[in-house]
């Protein structure tokens, strides 16, 4: 039962009524950023009203979907009031008054930032992440912190200490992960847009499972300062939105060089919203043959091939490309990511903040008990794996080899982009899976990221947009990937696709 995002059935109330009254009948929580900003600037509703509408929505359905770990009502209400005052003064900012959700590994001053972990359950960040600073500067209203796999380690949000989030399209199924909470919040209209983070597909795969748009920018495009690290050379914050146009707005706000992040890139920042408007005629879409093999669900394959046809109909040329090292991507990822994670997570030792085991006699006891009790199973698995691949005697065979494979994967993309402007592929091999379907078999779980991992290893931008549904009514995601720092192409192709299709206009009947 899909409806238009704006809830247009309520737009055509009696024209005799005042504009103000008319807009109050709009289903505000369904608005996109574009629509919300337009409505706020036109004084059709206030940020306080919009924020309240979002919280009303949350109060109504959060019990079914569990998108959030915690809400920041007071802060949001204050920010909404501030936004309304600025709007009244004629101020214009890209997100002024717009309710946004944050994945709970992005630090916001004075709020709990748990990373989905027991070990950080009571950690309150004393500082703002750079993206949070930029959201605040852009006038955003921060609604709450969304659920996630602990430290970003997982593909289903089942690894959260706070319990699982449910896929709004089918409550029996996972929303994907690790940014599952953000994907659910956007999909179920519990926020206007959200931020997620993507280390191996953590934005794109849940976006695909929940039928929304999710963009992982180029590594270095968005500052990681204040993003609690999982794998530092792979992590990237990105928007999770209802439309590609919204992702462009969000990216405009959060991107750019940050002196606090040495890995943030000193590159020109275009106006991504401008880029959307240009057409895609004559651009080439590459379909990598390695992505269409036996592991791929036939319904997903059909949707992707249909999407390719759509792009062709918009004037794009379809070409075959090859990313030959795809088969090594998952292994390479788990070596690189776990190695970095094993160091990144060392700071959670019970000494300074977060959880500390009480049943310890010695320092060693405190360390091991704290980490034994504070971390979940998957996190411990990855710390062990990472510690192993860095150990003396194994470093060359694993970590160093992994780095070499990573270079090969990077080269694959460079070669592929000689033949095309954008690569199109499935985001995930299959639509959303059921709870506990893969928890018993980590390797099966890892394979659900097989199509997304390469973009992180290569550092290129990737985006998932809804492109169809399975026969069981589950969303299917189309992944687009582009050259380093060519988000413009990604957004343009995605936007033109959405201008000519309606998959992104569908939402779950909750």
């Amino acid at each position, binding site marked *: 039962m899909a409806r238009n995002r704006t809830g247009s059935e309520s737009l055509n109330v009696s024209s005799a009524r005042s504009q103000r009254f008319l807009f109050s009948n709009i289903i505000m929580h369904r608005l996109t950023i574009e629509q919300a900003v337009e409505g706020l600037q036109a004084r059709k509703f206030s940020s306080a009203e919009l924020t309240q509408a979002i919280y009303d929505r949350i109060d109504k359905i959060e019990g079914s979907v569990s998108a959030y770990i915690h809400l920041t009502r007071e802060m949001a209400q204050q920010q909404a009031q501030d936004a309304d005052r600025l709007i009244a003064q004629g101020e214009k900012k890209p997100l002024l008054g717009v309710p946004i959700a944050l994945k709970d590994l992005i630090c916001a001053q004075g709020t709990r930032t748990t990373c989905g972990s027991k070990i950080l359950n009571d950690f309150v*960040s004393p500082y703002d*992440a750079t993206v949070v600073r930029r959201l605040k500067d852009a006038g955003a209203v921060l609604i709450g912190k969304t659920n996630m796999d602990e430290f970003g380690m997982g593909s289903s949000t089942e690894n959260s200490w706070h319990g699982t989030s449910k896929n709004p399209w089918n409550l029996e199924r996972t929303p994907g992960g690790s940014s599952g909470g953000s994907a659910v919040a956007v999909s179920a209209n519990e926020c206007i847009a959200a931020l997620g983070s993507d280390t191996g597909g953590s934005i794109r795969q849940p976006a695909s499972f929940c039928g929304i748009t999710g963009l992982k920018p180029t590594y270095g495009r968005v500052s*990681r*300062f*204040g993003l609690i690290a999982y794998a530092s050379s792979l992590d990237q914050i990105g928007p999770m939105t209802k439309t590609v146009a919204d992702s462009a707005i969000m990216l405009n706000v959060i991107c750019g060089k940050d002196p606090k992040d040495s890995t943030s890139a000193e590159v020109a920042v275009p106006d991504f919203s401008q880029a959307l408007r240009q057409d895609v005629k004559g651009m080439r879409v590459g379909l990598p043959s390695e992505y269409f093999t036996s592991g791929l669900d036939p319904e997903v394959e059909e949707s992707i091939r249909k999407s390719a046809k759509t792009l062709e109909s918009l004037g794009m040329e379809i070409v075959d490309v090859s990313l030959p090292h795809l088969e090594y991507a998952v292994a390479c990822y788990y070596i690189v990511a776990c190695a970095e994670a094993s*160091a990144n997570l*060392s700071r959670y030792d019970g000494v*300074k903040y977060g959880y500390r085991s009480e049943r310890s006699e010695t*320092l060693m006891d405190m360390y091991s008990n704290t980490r034994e009790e504070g971390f979940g199973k998957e996190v411990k698995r990855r710390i062990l794996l990472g510690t192993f691949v860095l150990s*003396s005697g194994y470093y060359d065979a694993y970590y160093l080899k992994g780095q070499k494979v990573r270079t090969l994967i990077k080269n694959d993309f460079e070669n592929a982009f000689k033949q095309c402007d954008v690569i199109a592929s499935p985001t995930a091999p299959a639509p959303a899976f059921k709870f506990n379907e893969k928890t018993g078999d980590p390797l099966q779980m890892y394979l659900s990221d097989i199509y997304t991992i390469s973009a992180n290893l290569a550092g290129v931008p990737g985006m998932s947009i809804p492109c169809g549904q399975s026969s069981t009514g589950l969303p299917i995601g189309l992944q687009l990937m582009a050259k380093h720092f060519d988000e413009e192409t990604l957004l343009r192709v995605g936007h033109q696709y959405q201008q000519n299709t309606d998959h992104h206009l569908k939402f779950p009947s909750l």
Partner: protein
Amino acid sequence: MDYELVIGLEVHTQMKTKTKIFCSCSTAFGRSPNENTCPVCLGLPGVLPVLNKQALEYAIRACLATHSEVQEISQFDRKNYFYPDLPKGYQISQFALPIGLRGHLDIQVDGVQKRIGITRIHMEEDAGKLIHGENLGVSGKSYIDFNRTGVPLIEIVSEPELRSAEEAKAYLIELRSILQYADVSDCNMEEGSFRCDANVSLRPWGQEEFGTRTELKNLNSFRFIQKAIEYETDRQAKILNQGEKVIQETRLYDSDKGITFSMRSKEEAHDYRYFPEPDLPPIVVNSEWIERTRSTIPELPEEKRQRYVAEFKIPEYDAGVLTAEQDLAHYFENCVSEGAIPKTASNWIMGDLLGRLNKEGLGISNCPIPAIAMAELFKLIDKQTISGKIAKTVFEDMYSTGKPAEQIIQEKGLVQISDTGALEKLVQEVIDANPGQAEEFRNGKDKLMGFFVGQVMKASKGQANPELVNKIIKEKLT
């Protein structure tokens, strides 16, 4: 059996930056616990390091001053281990690609010059400090002061080319002097800004390969370093003489007992699991930067020493003493440039001036007599306006009152008597008063010269020019 001692030294020194290596916290010493901290150096979740460019600049200076090759591309690594004073659970250091390689410095022991190789120089962050509750009267608890966490250090690793405790000490003194000259570090051992670990092993004379080494830590003064190495040499020699094997381990020096004791053995040694720090891109230093920095490195102690010997014709020993500290060298050079004869200046500075300062525990930088005033005294000595003996009195007065030498001499009428007529009169009086001794002198008892000079000096209240007195006595009595 006799063994050859083999020593390699690892020196950690704090660079002079005002702020820490990866955040903007102050590096000031002596602040209250955890005052100099922020989310970054506390390793809070989500923070990232940003390299302090000034720290890199200092590291480059250290490389250039020790003739090390500055690496065009170097890199930070994570050194992983758990300890409460290490907030991230890893230390950001340099492992595979350090900033400097293949340097050297020259030392002199017993007049013999020797070149000691420097294997590598790398940058790293310091850790914090654990304070055990017992020291605060709270047992069963420990506290951590993170003020030092993230203070920028360089580690300078020598080749195992030192062969005695004296050589080790000479190396450290020279290295400290170089780092101070190059303005890299103040090398204050009390504040921990110059720390040393020593790798010590013995091998039978003539044997090519090294014996098993121990690493000595906690050596926080030059004296302790020498003592610890001497103790460790004896300990290892005893073990080897008993036909046993030295265990490779880390040992701490206990300065109260004068012994070293085992801290941890190799079996417990850490596997630090170094890997490249993904939060910091590789460090690129181009040759232009290196050359620009090189041009700002001042004359270093060794060059200065050679110049002093050649230019000022002072003995090598004096040159060594005067150049050991940059401030002292400046003081000396200022005196000379004001017109003092170098030898007079060096004798006086090394003797009376340093002696006086030492007595009060002062350094040359706290000297109450400015070089320009001191030079005036030296010139009066050089011109023989006053004798060396009177000069000592004048110096004491200058030191305590701050008055210029001329003024003191005027006020006290201390000018040396070089008037031949006046002196001849004095000498004659002394001869007349001591006819017996005069007779003996004439008969060849030369030793009595001292007696006559002494009597004349006494009669002149020390103001007679002793050389002239000598001359006149000789004339009159032969």
